């Protein structure tokens, strides 16, 4: 008997009747068969009879014309899916990465810019690492050096804020570098991917001059918010408006579908920063969330680390029994930075005894740095500097807008 391949026409018996369909795949010893009604069912694989191959259906693809008079932008993909296509014969959803495919799925992009698409990786964003950040940084740098008006980076949303802040430190640039993703997969008609991509293109050709994340501002398809890469956080597991600026208002908004863009007064403008590339990062850095009662010997696992960011309680505390162990870590050459698990607000280790003891032990106050941003920044600084005073000074100085000098009222 012929072996069933994805797409084969098969026959199977259900009850007292024969059914015909298309073999899709095997799942846990069971065949998934698409019936002529379009429904899939699972069925014992031994009961399938292969009738023959099913005819390939080739969708006629519309030609995509790019307007040579529009500015050029680069779309760099890391594995986040902004465009996908459904094969209705098998029901398979495939991600699309070529510029043509993306523009075919989101034709509105062609009236904003012309595009050059580059694929740096095809990973799930939880598998992101420093090596890919570095590859991405090089790709972005090269594109900007080549003269593009802006760069759009398509990224899975889970770790997008980490990558965006890493790129902020690695690639100071005169043009916008815009990160964009989707919370609802691109194969569904309700996906947020198209609107986010369109708004990101608007931001990429705009007067902005820093690294940002462009995503839905609310649950409605009414506008996208432009967030500073070093002040943004994914604050919800699934909502479209999961990304929120913490401690500062968003850099601006792009209205949809009018695409009218507004920028706040405090943003870095196009051309303000010179292009450079500093991709070295110290990989032996960690982020640790303190919880009450956590035994201090946990910290022994961090001996030998170059950097440790603690997400402490409230103003920046850990249990007092941690203080001596932290002192040992610091004496052993680990740079320890204190941030707060409150996320909102500034660390201050000068108010209570534990805090003062931490400072005396050599802990660096992380100001109002988001814990994840503190980790990325520490890793990046330790890629170049080792002197405790220099590391401390740089950690407490805002390099890419990651620290707010003032805690603004009303946010």
């Amino acid at each position, binding site marked *: 008997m012929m072996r069933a391949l994805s797409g084969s026409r098969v026959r199977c018996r*259900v*009850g*007292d*009747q024969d*059914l015909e369909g298309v073999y899709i795949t095997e*799942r846990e010893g*069971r065949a*998934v068969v*698409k*019936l*002529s*009604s*379009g*429904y*899939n*069912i*699972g*069925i*014992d694989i031994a009961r399938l009879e292969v009738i023959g191959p099913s005819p390939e259906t080739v*969708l006629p693809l*519309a030609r995509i014309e790019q307007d040579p008079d529009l500015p050029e932008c680069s779309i760099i993909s890391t594995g986040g899916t902004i465009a996908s296509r*459904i094969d*209705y014969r098998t*029901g*398979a*959803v495939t991600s699309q990465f070529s510029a043509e495919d993306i523009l*075919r799925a989101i*034709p509105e992009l062609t009236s904003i810019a012309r595009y050059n698409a580059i694929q740096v990786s095809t990973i799930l964003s939880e598998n992101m690492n420093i090596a890919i950040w570095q590859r991405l940084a090089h790709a972005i740098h090269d594109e900007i050096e080549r003269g593009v008006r802006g760069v759009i980076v398509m990224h899975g949303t889970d770790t997008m804020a980490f990558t965006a802040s890493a790129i902020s430190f690695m690639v100071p640039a005169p043009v916008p570098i815009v990160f964009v993703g989707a*919370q*609802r997969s691109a*194969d*569904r*008609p*309700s*996906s947020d991917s*198209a*609107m986010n991509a369109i708004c990101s293109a608007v931001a990429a050709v705009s007067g902005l001059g820093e690294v940002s994340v462009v995503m839905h501002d*609310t*649950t*409605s*398809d*009414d506008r996208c918010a432009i967030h500073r890469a070093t002040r943004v956080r994914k604050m919800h*597991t*699934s*909502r*479209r408006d999961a990304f929120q600026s913490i401690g500062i208002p968003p850099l601006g908004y792009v209205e949809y*579908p009018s695409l009218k863009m507004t920028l706040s007064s405090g943003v870095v403008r196009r051309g303000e920063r010179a292009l450079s590339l500093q991709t070295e990062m110290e990989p032996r850095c960690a982020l640790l969330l303190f919880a009450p009662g956590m035994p201090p010997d946990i910290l022994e696992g961090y001996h030998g680390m170059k950097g440790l960011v603690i997400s402490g309680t409230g103003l920046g505390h850990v249990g007092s029994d941690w203080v001596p162990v932290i002192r040992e870590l610091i004496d052993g050459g680990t740079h320890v930075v204190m941030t707060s698990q409150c996320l909102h607000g500034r660390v201050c280790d000068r108010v209570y005894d534990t805090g003062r003891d931490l400072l005396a032990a050599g802990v660096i106050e992380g100001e109002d740095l988001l814990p994840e941003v503190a980790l990325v920044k520490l890793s990046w600084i330790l890629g170049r500097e080792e002197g405790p005073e220099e590391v401390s000074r740089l950690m407490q100085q805002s390099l890419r807008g990651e620290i707010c000098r003032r805690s603004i009222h009303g946010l």
Partner: protein
Amino acid sequence: MDYEAIGLKAGLEIHQQLDTEEKLFCHCPTVLRDIKERNSEFHRFLRATVSELGEMDRAAEEEMMAQRRFTYYAYDTTCLVEDDEEPPAPLNNEALEIALTIAKLFGMTPVEEVHTMRKLVIDGSNTTGFQRTALVALHGRLPGGCRLDSICLEEEAAQRVDDRTFSLDRLGIPLVEISTAPCLRTPEEVQEVAEYIGMVLRSTGRVKRGIGTIRQDINISIRGGARVEIKGVQELDLIADAVKGEVKRQLALLAIKDELLSRRAAVMEEFRDVTPLFSETGSKILKKAPCILAVFLQEFGGLVGREIQPGRRLGSELADYAKKCGVGGIFHTDELPAYGISEGEISRLRVELRASEGDCIVLVAGERERAECAARQVMKRAKLALVGIPEETRRMLGEGESTAYLRPLPGAARMYPETDVFPVRLTPPEWEAIEVPELLSVRAERFVRDLGLDPAVARQIAYSDRIGLFEAAVSEGIRPSVAARTLASTLRELKRDGIKVDGIGDREILELFRMVESGRLAKEAIPSVLKSMAGGKSLEDAIQEVAPPMTEEGLEALIDRIVRERESFVRERGRRALGPLMGVVMAEARGRVDGKVIASMLGRAIDRITGGDERRLNTEGKRIDENA
């Protein structure tokens, strides 16, 4: 009409909401809300995929996309799953079990593994842009020989509030979709089978009741015609008429096609901009339109205006297609001059297009893009008239036989897997364990046979919402006649009088039956007590109001008074006065005491006056010989 001769084939798709605790893919309750209770609204666009709009050109596609801004109403009984802001929960097991119960009732075969699919629906009624649906069982039997093809478990769509606004309360309520094979041959058979399927569904006792909870789609074709689906027929009584109406339409369209072909009719490939011809027109619509386009239908004259269903012409079909582009409708020369368009304008139009009387010209008006889209749609539908009947989904217009175009029939092409929901394995032991409830029809027969109910009453009870209450009451010894009368007649009569009896709980009614059975309340008082309860009173308060308890002394005194007032009558008639006096006492006791008790006491009172018999009476008021 000889339906066999014209080759009528019809099938049914029945959608029935299930009465589950929670929705199909989230843990929200399955309750409908008043839109005034909404606590937020949001806006979304849905993007068509290539295959769904494959036939539309690019301009039309973009036009439609720009229009698709939908508004959704959310409630404190809806969650992020309805908002399409959270992945779905696993398939609701309670709903699956009900679907399997129904499948078993129809003798169907379950699939080994249930896979949830996404069926693309981009009319806004699903926030996701697709409807989740899963095939549960195949191949069932119907009395009369027709077969069931399948039963699917689906999520209900959001309720449309207006053109582009939807209410999320209904979205996600589980429903079963039951499809018959196209093996029904007469309009009456279609209606009977729909009725039968509805009865089987209700036999489970676990489906929702009331308006909108069951919808019938009918698939109809005749020889030489095409499969047409009529959506959402809500009333059983309309089904046969809907089938007849569609047969009429298809026959009329086939006749038009034959005539068009014999006339060598044709649709001109180009439409013409005729805006300047109407610069002075009396038609308000044309006057304010930035662009007026004319479609030339050669040798269509007279046929565009020919009636194909009550109030529907070929012109209406052209208009339905044109409306898809956002224009209000069309004008065609078969119906002109009218609507402010003059004879002179028509003549100039005919000259301009070199059209003769035998031709028909269709006018569409609006913004240029819309008008062009509409003109192309008119040409498309007119060309189809030369070929026959297009496969379409249509909707009922009011309660008549007529229907209007909704969209082309969807194919299997719009389904792909819902990867966020795991498949569910159905094992033979699980299938065996599904209990099959008694059919309502069988139950009604049992009530006639075992409880001696009148067949009509038995059917009313068996099919009523209170069937569970009836069975519970009878099983604990309440007289079937009392329970049946209350549930089949009293409640219905009160409802007809506008009294809101639906709010009275089964438990309270059962307690009321117990009161009657124990003699605490007379059965005559039931209507008044129910009426008072419908007004919001508790059972206790209602009884207190309608029939405050009467002590034995109180009753004694009442009877004494009544008998003494009618002393001469009593003396004259003796024991035969009992009957007439019963009515008088009952009217005063107003159902507070059981009739038997009254009869017995009244008998003794009569005897005291007539000086007669002091012997005890039995409860019927008849003498019992003490020595017997």
